[in-house]
């Protein structure tokens, strides 16, 4: 028997499979391992960001700053590398900045009781603004390590390629799964999303957890920023505009409730992959103009969320609780 709470993830996975098969029937070269693995490479930074977002949303919050953090991290990384700083210094530095920034937002949210939506909106303005201040122009990164990492990976038959980006994503995913399901922190996150007041009265360290959640989200966004800088070999202040909405959409399509408390990290990965597959499908189709692209994406999201509403009725599913 499948527990009802797993249904949304399975529905999303089913939709993914259906769309993949549809594409494979329609277009040459679609139903290949290569296209499938490309999804991991091309969406790695989004997936990493969305994984961080999952923790935030599970706790009942939201983080609008992630796109801007990616941009800021990318620009700062690029500028520092071009200024001749060594990578082993640059990467830890930007990650620490990211984490600290998130912790700062967490402090505002917890200690000053400000609403996450607004705090992270201000954080988004700040990070985007700082990115522009660091460099208005996009900054190319010329570094041998970048070239090496971008070339690294495992080539499979059929020109399918497991890239460094994909490997990084898998590592982050594994870490997030452990954090969510095998560490106290994860339980606290779910607890706060279930009922913040109860969580407090059950001695959940709310301050530490809130700060940790936003620090984690920003940290992962900074990591995604580094991955994005590899993906594009550059840093650009206007990169990843609106990415927070993509991340939120992926989390929700992956079956996590925006009100918090219910959902799974793994669902988010499926959500990101599904959204990436939609884009691939549209690119393979190649006949949609700009506005039809938007309309089709909107309609597909609509269909996905509507399909998710179809669930096993909860009462019947939980009918055997009595002694």
């Amino acid at each position, binding site marked *: 028997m499948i527990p009802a709470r797993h249904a949304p993830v399975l529905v999303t996975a089913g939709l993914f499979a259906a769309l993949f098969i549809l594409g494979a029937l329609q277009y040459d*070269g679609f139903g290949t391992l290569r296209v499938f693995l490309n999804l991991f490479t091309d969406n790695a930074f989004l997936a990493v960001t969305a994984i961080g977002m999952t923790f935030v949303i599970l706790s009942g919050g939201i983080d609008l700053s992630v796109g801007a953090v990616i941009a800021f991290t990318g620009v700062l990384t690029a500028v520092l590398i071009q200024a001749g700083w060594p990578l082993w210094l640059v990467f830890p530095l930007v990650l620490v900045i990211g984490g600290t920034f998130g912790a700062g937002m967490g402090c505002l949210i917890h200690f000053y009781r400000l609403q996450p939506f607004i705090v992270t909106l201000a954080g988004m303005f700040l990070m985007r603004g700082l990115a522009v201040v660091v460099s208005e122009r996009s900054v190319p990164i010329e570094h041998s390590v970048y070239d090496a990492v971008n070339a690294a990976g495992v080539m499979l038959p059929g020109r399918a390629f497991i890239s460094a980006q994909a490997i990084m994503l898998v590592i982050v995913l594994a870490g997030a799964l452990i954090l969510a399901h095998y560490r106290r922190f994860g339980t606290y996150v779910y607890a706060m999303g279930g009922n913040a007041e109860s969580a407090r009265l059950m001695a959940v360290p709310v301050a530490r957890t809130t700060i940790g959640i936003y620090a984690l989200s920003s940290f992962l966004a900074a990591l995604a920023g580094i991955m994005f800088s590899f993906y594009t*070999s550059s840093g650009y202040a206007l990169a990843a505009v609106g990415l927070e909405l993509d991340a939120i959409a992926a989390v929700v399509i992956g079956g996590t409730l925006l009100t918090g408390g219910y959902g799974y990290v793994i669902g988010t990965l499926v959500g990101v992959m599904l959204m990436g597959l939609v884009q691939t499908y549209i690119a393979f189709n190649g006949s949609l103009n700009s506005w039809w692209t938007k309309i089709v994406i909107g309609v597909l999201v609509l269909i996905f969320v509507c399909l998710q509403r179809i669930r096993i009725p909860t009462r019947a599913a939980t009918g055997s609780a009595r002694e």
Partner: protein
Amino acid sequence: GSGSSEGGADDQLTVGFSQVGSESGWRTSFTQAVQAEARDRGIDLKFSDAQQKQENQIRAVRSFIAQGVDAIVIAPVVETGWKPVLTEAKRAGIPVVIVDRNMALEDDSLYLTRVASDFVEEGRKAGRWLMEETGGDCDIVELQGTVGATAAIDRMTGFNEVIANYPDAEIVMTQTADFTRARGKEIMETFLRAMDPADICAVWAHNDEMALGAVIAMKEAGIDPGDDILVVSVDAVPDIFKAMADGDTNATVELSPHMGGPAFDAIEAHLRGESVEKLISVNGDLFTQETAAEEYQKRTAG
């Protein structure tokens, strides 16, 4: 669209075109011009709209590669960050043509050719015209494009380069108006409130849309744009010719949307085995009120 290559793959050319998005009327004209050109030549054009995001563009290009198109045309969102994906295209043996904005690439074997205009030169042209018109004595208000956009930065650079040679020319106020008409109007309104309009000699807008917005603001404030305050901008969209013909703005530098033709020419030449120039320049001219009415007719008729 069903299967892309049912036997007849060899006689019909399949080209993937990755466009920035549809953020302005000019961009839409550009897209439509490329699509029309492809239709005329019988090219199967795979169009992808990136909605202003580089990551979407990279994804689209990688999809094109996976699909095995014959060539790829990219109008990049931003100059940097193309080396990895172009390397991949090169490995797959797919020629890439860059149109519109430039790409910062050291290795020019990564692309077939660039069909490009030069934003810095556009700024210079606008600056030169204004300096000639005013004898180098002019207090200018500037409407910048989106902060961080290459077009904005380069046009500003070119323009400032020119006016630096004229000690009496100065930019007295500047602010971003995000390349849009509405913001152009709003910012101009504030400028007019902040200083005495009589002290403003000219408006320099990084695109036509913002100039058209500024024109509305000036008219509402009882100022005669084009006479009391000169207006110079870039793009040469049809609306600006109408405004120039009405005497509301003074000059515009053309950014041609017809880059599809040269791009397809280059691809076809390459596939025939001919060699292709690395840069195909499509720098536009500066238009003034004299020819505006005529140009407007020409551009709206087709």
